[in-house]
């Protein structure tokens, strides 16, 4: 066993400096398009028609963007006559109206240490991979006081990914009901926010918000681990939420 101990000690510490400092290593985020008021006319029309999921829209002759629908299909990236601005950051999480109200009521102890239960409500497993990396050395969420728990009965936060399939609905509700108060919910990714490419349909809901109250939403398909860390920090009031500009054209709260 001492061999493994040495191995661990000899390994360079890869943990990100976020949230103390922004992380800028290449490959940590797929980025999101930035709605810009400068795009008009034909260029605007062309961009909107390129978007097959309704994330980009035309609003009063400017470009609207619904981050809950964007699935990083990359079809609008670098393809328009006038370049669409692309934001490579990862601080995407937003509070819902309920989340804002709930945040004010949070006690200090809740902010410092949280237990999280992840629920797969029909996710493609990319979201789950990103969530599982949170506990790995690169993101090491334990240093920030976040821990996974196997049981919802001990969980403070429910981290839900997937469009909520018909078969998972009752299990999700059961898990939510068995959490102690105060409890918070984070909708992870486009699927959990709007149903993504799968819902609403005969098998899937249009995301989570019709079923249980949601405090924080994280856009992305999937949201990278840093976006998930940001969501946890926003939930506990330790970081500012994403600027509202992303949410142009959507008032999902």
């Amino acid at each position, binding site marked *: 066993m001492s061999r493994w101990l040495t191995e661990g000690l000899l390994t360079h510490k890869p943990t990100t400096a976020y949230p103390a400092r922004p992380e800028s290593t*290449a490959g940590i985020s*797929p980025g999101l398009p930035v709605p810009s008021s400068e795009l008009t006319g034909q260029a605007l029309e062309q961009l909107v028609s390129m978007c097959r999921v309704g994330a980009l829209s035309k609003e009063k002759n400017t470009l609207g963007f619904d981050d809950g629908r964007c*699935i990083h299909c990359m079809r609008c990236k670098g393809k328009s006559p006038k370049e669409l601005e692309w934001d490579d950051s990862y601080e995407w999480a937003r509070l819902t109206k309920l989340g804002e109200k709930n945040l004010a009521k949070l006690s200090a102890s809740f902010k410092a240490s949280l237990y999280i239960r992840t629920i797969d409500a029909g996710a493609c497993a990319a979201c789950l991979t990103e969530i599982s990396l949170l506990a790995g050395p690169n993101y090491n969420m334990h240093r920030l006081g976040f821990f996974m728990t196997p049981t919802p009965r001990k969980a403070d936060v429910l981290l839900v990914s997937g469009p909520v399939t018909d078969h998972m*609905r009752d299990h999700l509700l059961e898990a939510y009901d068995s959490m102690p108060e105060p409890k918070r919910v984070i909708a992870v990714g486009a699927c959990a926010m709007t149903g993504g490419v799968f819902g609403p349909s*005969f*098998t899937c809901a249009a995301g989570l918000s019709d079923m249980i109250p949601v405090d924080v939403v994280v856009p992305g398909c999937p949201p990278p681990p840093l976006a998930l860390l940001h969501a946890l920090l926003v939930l506990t009031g330790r970081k500012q939420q994403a600027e509202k500009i992303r949410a142009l054209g959507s008032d999902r709260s």
Partner: protein
Amino acid sequence: MQDSLKEFISANFARIELQEHKNGQTILEAECQPGDLVEFCRCLFCDQHMYYAMLVVEESAEQWIIKHVFYAPSGEMLHVLVRLPLAQTILPSIATQVHAADWHEREAEDLFGLTFEGHPRLGDFVLHDHWPEGTNPMRSSFDASQSLPPGKQASDWQPIRLLESEGSFAMPIGPIYSDVSESALFVLETVGEDVLRTIPRLFYKHRGIEKLAEGQKAHDVLLLAERFSGTASFAHTLAFCRAMETIGQIQIPARAQSIRLFVAELERVRHHVSALAKLCASTALAVAASQASILEEQMLRLSCKLSGHRFLFGMNTIGGLSMDIPEELFRQVLQESQEVGGRLLRLRRKLTRTSSFLDRLQDVGVISQQDARAHAMLGPAARACGISMDLRQALPYGPYGDASSLHIPTEQEGDGYARMRIFFEEIQVSLQLMKDALETMPKGPVAAENADCGAGAALGWSEAPGGGTFHWVRTDEEGKVLRWRLGTPSFANWHGFHLAAEKFAFQDFPIILASMGLSVAESDR
């Protein structure tokens, strides 16, 4: 290559009509009367040792077209076809002879309302019990945009048969269990210390993507193919694009082929590293799990540098690739991948010298070669029991034009340790393939100029990280998808999962699960 198969069929099954269809790809079709189906399929599977790929059910305006797809390691492919009038929904089950077709028939029974006569167990499979009786979502009359009234799920589901003996009990695990896990239910039956049987119940994540695709443009269905199983997205889009390219008879530029190979192998490396990370974590070997997790993150970052997306979304497109990548970036990605490869060799060396780790893998989750074949298991799980099946070699496609020299690692033991060695070994093979691809990568365009597809039907396949995947696509004149059928490796391997989870100590369950490297999303669709 098909000649010997043709001769065999005409010599032994005179009543079966053989037809060759040429539409970009040559498909050998054998049309059967329902009465001959079972014996013919048995002969192909048991005597001719062909592999079972999948069952494709299509509902046209006037008839059912039901196809069992078989293929052989030597490159033959055969579609066994039965036509039935629409009013007739009963046909013979081949599952009693071709066990690999078991789950396919159960699925078709649930989704189309077909009855497979002689099948030992139908009902409650893809659609769980609470769906209204007579709902058959894949029928053309079913409206996929409607949301069904929420039925209450029974919380006390039990398998049809349970052990009855003094002190026996069934322990449910799931559908929500462990720290971060995909939703699935496992019923573990035990009479004391040891677990005797495991009964998995899947499809908690069924999203009905085959139905959602109907009537959509192929370009939009691509988004579904990319996202239904995020951990093998490139392999699935590759299979789907290849089906569409066959329909449209689109020539793929040589550079695109070469890049597709590079990226597909990059995805395989990332998938296997991720599987190894989970395996180390399941044995609670924290340092090894952390090391593997660092490498997994590194592979994700490399994928993102290359394509702009950590899971390679948005890269494949019908007709080639959506983007070209500069030479320099390829070199950098290859070099860093090789560094990961080197660190994995080191990890492997350390793991194979840790006896407490080996104790938990050796002789755990053993699958015999015979059982694996009967269940038509695929990918690393099958290669760990000595089945040298790999679509890159058996049915060389697109970028793998001549892959007869491809090294396919196999092991004989069929236990968790053998599967782990396969994962490690395949990573090194993939790295070599990436290197070779880059050395010979031609210049030129990365996408065909015209990628329009008209009416047609074709089968596309690729060797996904978990095993061979098949995509059957039929389109109309406008290029809209009429039918999309997926045969995924996880579906085949979950069918055989119970083989690995018999007569074991309870604490080995997470290890067996992790060593199989299965995806629930890929199976549930």
